[in-house]
């Protein structure tokens, strides 16, 4: 009766039956899928494919958020500790200061002044010294003007030597002889042939010159490369900076050029003789700095440079908690310079007040909405959602209109005779204004989570409690309220997170006493340009918010956030 080809037992190859039978025969072997692979592996392959598909869908957005959002945040975190500017601008000084004890209140060795002379001179030519001055000014008032002054004044030291060399031989103030003395002959030929188009042939030192004149070679190379790359001028036509003459004097005073036979040997040897002669005028670097500004021979500036010489610093963070780096380690600032502790406290305090007023105002409304018939509740819900959907700036401007001294509330109060016309209440540009406006702005964020929790509380519990003899208050406090606590928690954390980082509203209605830490961050970004401090303040704020976010995630779950009821 049965057809051999369709007879289940006769079919060879992968059919479910065969697989089952094969599995039975194998007895203790793994369960197999239809195609003979073990079921486990087949399942995990299918799962892997599903996972991959899901990840492929998520990947574009994840990359987008990582690049446009997480990377900027990471950059800000990095900036709060980054401090490369001192090390980059004053490399020699930082190195010379290595064994300087900042706590000793002594002046550093002469080598430090020498290093600082070269560093500040080069920085001034590159116009970097004012930036460094601004940076150090955050730590020590006066540093900015000190550096600005020094950028101009350091020429005086070099001019002492330059003038004497020039008096000896005019060639010392000419571009060509210097180039012949220092430069490689091949380079000079190439530079001469350069027609002004394309890139200049890069400056090369003549072989052997750096052994004879080490400082001058270094200094001249820096000059020549700067001229070529930054200014686009040929070193063959530019007389060198005065710093090169200083370096030459130092080299000649220390070394011996008697055996030198290269180009311009006579000129160099004449200079050497001049330096060796007793009436050659010299000036020590320390005196040179002292002439520019007395502050250079006070230990404070050197202590500051030493303290801020590492590439990464905790200085910004210490600043943002009212401390400062001192040679003896971190210490609290003077009483009258502490502002951030107060500001953080105020931000916390005002956020708490705003959160509590939101609970106070939001709870009755959420209770009413969740106990009214659906139709009425939906109508009233519009009154909650309309402010939620209205532009933040509209609401802030509304409060400005309402609260100001010639504003609507004051007008009504005056009209009612409750306040005198000359005694109008000051309700704006202070903490009161910020608290009222922000309570209004954040109230929907409190009502909505509360409402969604309260509408899940079965009314029968309340009725049961009452029928068992509980008073109204007991029913509410022992039965209803505990069930509504998750809603309060969710709303409070949300409101607190939002309020602690608010910027716009305090900026407009807060005046000076009602501003938050955010306003200070914005001030440092746009006005004082102390970006490191802004980043450190931002990092602290971010940590607080992320802790709360984590708590919110644990309590409510981020995927349970509801928008618009």
């Amino acid at each position, binding site marked *: 009766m049965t057809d051999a080809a369709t007879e289940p037992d006769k079919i060879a190859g992968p059919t479910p039956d065969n697989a089952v039978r094969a599995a039975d025969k194998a007895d203790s072997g793994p369960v197999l899928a239809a195609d003979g692979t073990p079921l486990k592996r087949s399942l995990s392959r299918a*799962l892997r494919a599903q*996972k991959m598909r*899901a*990840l492929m*869908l*998520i990947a*574009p957005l*994840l990359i*987008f*958020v990582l690049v446009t*959002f*997480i990377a*900027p*945040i990471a*950059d800000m975190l990095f*900036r709060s500790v980054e401090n490369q500017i001192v090390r980059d601008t004053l490399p020699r000084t930082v190195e010379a200061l290595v064994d300087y004890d900042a706590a000793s209140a002594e002046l550093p060795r002469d080598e430090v002044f020498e290093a600082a002379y070269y560093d500040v001179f080069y920085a001034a030519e590159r116009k970097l010294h004012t930036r460094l001055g601004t940076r150090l000014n955050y730590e020590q008032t006066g540093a900015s003007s000190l550096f600005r002054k020094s950028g101009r004044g350091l020429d005086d030291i070099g001019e002492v030597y330059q003038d004497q060399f020039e008096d000896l031989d005019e060639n010392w103030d000419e571009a060509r002889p210097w180039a012949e003395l220092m430069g490689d002959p091949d380079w000079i030929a190439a530079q001469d042939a350069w027609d002004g188009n394309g890139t200049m042939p890069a400056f090369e030192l003549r072989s052997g010159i750096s052994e004879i004149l080490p400082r001058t070679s270094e200094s001249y190379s820096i000059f020549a490369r700067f001229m070529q790359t930054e200014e686009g001028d040929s070193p063959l036509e530019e007389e060198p900076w005065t710093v090169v003459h200083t370096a030459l004097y130092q080299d000649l005073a220390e070394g011996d050029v008697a055996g030198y036979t290269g180009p311009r040997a006579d000129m160099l040897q004449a200079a050497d003789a001049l330096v060796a002669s007793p009436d050659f005028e010299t000036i020590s670097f320390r005196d040179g700095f002292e002439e520019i500004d007395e502050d250079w021979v006070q230990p404070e500036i050197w202590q500051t440079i030493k303290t801020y010489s590492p590439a990464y610093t905790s200085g910004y963070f210490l600043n943002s908690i009212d401390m400062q780096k001192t040679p003896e380690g971190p210490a609290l600032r003077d009483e009258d310079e502490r502002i951030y502790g107060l500001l953080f406290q105020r931000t916390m305090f005002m956020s708490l007040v705003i959160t509590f007023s939101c609970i106070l*105002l939001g709870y*009755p*409304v959420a209770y009413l909405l969740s106990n009214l018939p*659906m139709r009425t509740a939906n109508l*009233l819900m*519009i*009154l*909650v959602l*309309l*402010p939620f*959907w209205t*532009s*933040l*700036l*509209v609401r802030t*401007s*509304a409060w400005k*209109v309402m609260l*100001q001294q*010639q*504003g*609507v509330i004051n007008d009504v109060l005056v*009209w*009612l005779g409750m306040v005198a016309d000359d005694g109008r209440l000051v309700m704006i540009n202070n903490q009161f204004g910020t608290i009222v406006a922000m309570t*209004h702005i954040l109230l929907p964020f409190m009502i909505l989570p509360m409402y969604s929790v309260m509408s899940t509380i079965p009314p029968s519990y309340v009725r049961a409690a009452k029928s068992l003899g509980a008073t*109204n208050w007991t029913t509410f406090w022992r039965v209803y309220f505990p069930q509504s606590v998750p809603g309060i928690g969710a709303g409070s954390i949300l409101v607190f*997170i939002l309020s602690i*980082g*608010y*910027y*716009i509203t305090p900026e*407009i209605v807060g005046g000076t006493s009602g501003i938050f830490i955010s306003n200070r*961050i*914005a001030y440092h*970004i746009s006005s004082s340009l102390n970006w490191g401090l*802004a980043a450190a303040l*931002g990092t602290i*704020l*971010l940590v607080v*918010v992320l802790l709360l*976010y984590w708590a919110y*995630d644990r309590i409510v779950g*981020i995927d349970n956030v509801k*928008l618009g009821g």
Partner: protein
Amino acid sequence: MSEAILTPIEKKPIGFTAGVLAAAGAFAGLFIGTAQGSGLLGIVVGAALMAALAFVAMQVLGEALEKPVRWGLIALGAVGGFLFGGAPGLVLGALFGWFFGWFIYWVGMGRYRAHLVPYLTPGQVLWHYTFRVICGAIFVFLITPILVVMPLSFNAEDFFTFTPEMLRFDPEGYSLKHYRDFLTNPEWTSAVKNSLLVAPVATLISVSLGTLAAIGLSQSHVPGKRAIMAILISPMIVPLIISATGMYFFYSKIGLVGTYWGIVLAHAVLGIPFVIITVTATLVGFDRSLTRAAANMGANPVTTFFKVQMPLILPGVISGGLFAFITSFDEVVVVLFIGSAELQTLPWQMFTGLREQISPTILAAATILVAISICLLTAVEILRRRSEKLRGMSPG
């Protein structure tokens, strides 16, 4: 408190009615009295007047004459108010008259118990209505600032408050000049134009990427789902000032500060959490067997997505898009940091206008924005209901 229970309504003793009315009258009289100079006199006159009115209405005229009495009170209030305070007084007086006309009969006839269960004690009834009054006050707090802005935007003067002409309902006191300024002043029109150039593009980016990711996230077995979700939601949680600071540093490194695309990208990333949240919420109720059925009938994944899944989750996608749009349209902190003078958006213009308080044109802009947000709110509400209907939930 179901509607089925009927509490019998009966006429209250006149002593009760007159007492309550006297208290209410004293309260109202206090305000009118202080406005006219003497609070104490206001209290006495208000209490006496209201008690007398209650007596007349309840005992002399009776229930049958309710309608004429109430109209009479409105007229009386209007005339009295006009004598005291001119046009605004007329409106206020009429409102007072209307309220007390209703209140006398509401209290006197015991109507206030009509919707309450019969076993409530007087104290509980009193608390019930006190609670409602408190809630009403909170609703007033929520909505008044928005309502106050609207009439002020028609101010004929450059003031941020009501002028005497406006309170007299003098047509001279009102004008459309701030709207005219808003629509013709190049500062405002270019701000609107910039906002309209930025917001749709930012919305498009966040909606397209966000919807894809939400679909991916809604599948089972996504490794690290919680962490991914936390990262994607973070733009909403991290304070805007921190996002703006970070973006300012980072975007200036890659040359995006002050450019159109810098603002678009920043706004797109700020809108993403809203898209993720709304679309994920829509996908919770999505029946997965529908896509399997489509695949079974030979549709490829792209067809399945556009023909089966997309129409069902479209309401969620659109409302997420509206959220993203309003986020971009309303965003000011990031624009202040990474924008430039040529790229001033509408919120930027409003912010600087508010800080310097130049002209009430800002109120005209605010009124227009409120109108827009009412439209958006309606749209989102309709979409939400439609989505719940599509997914077989009962719309709330």
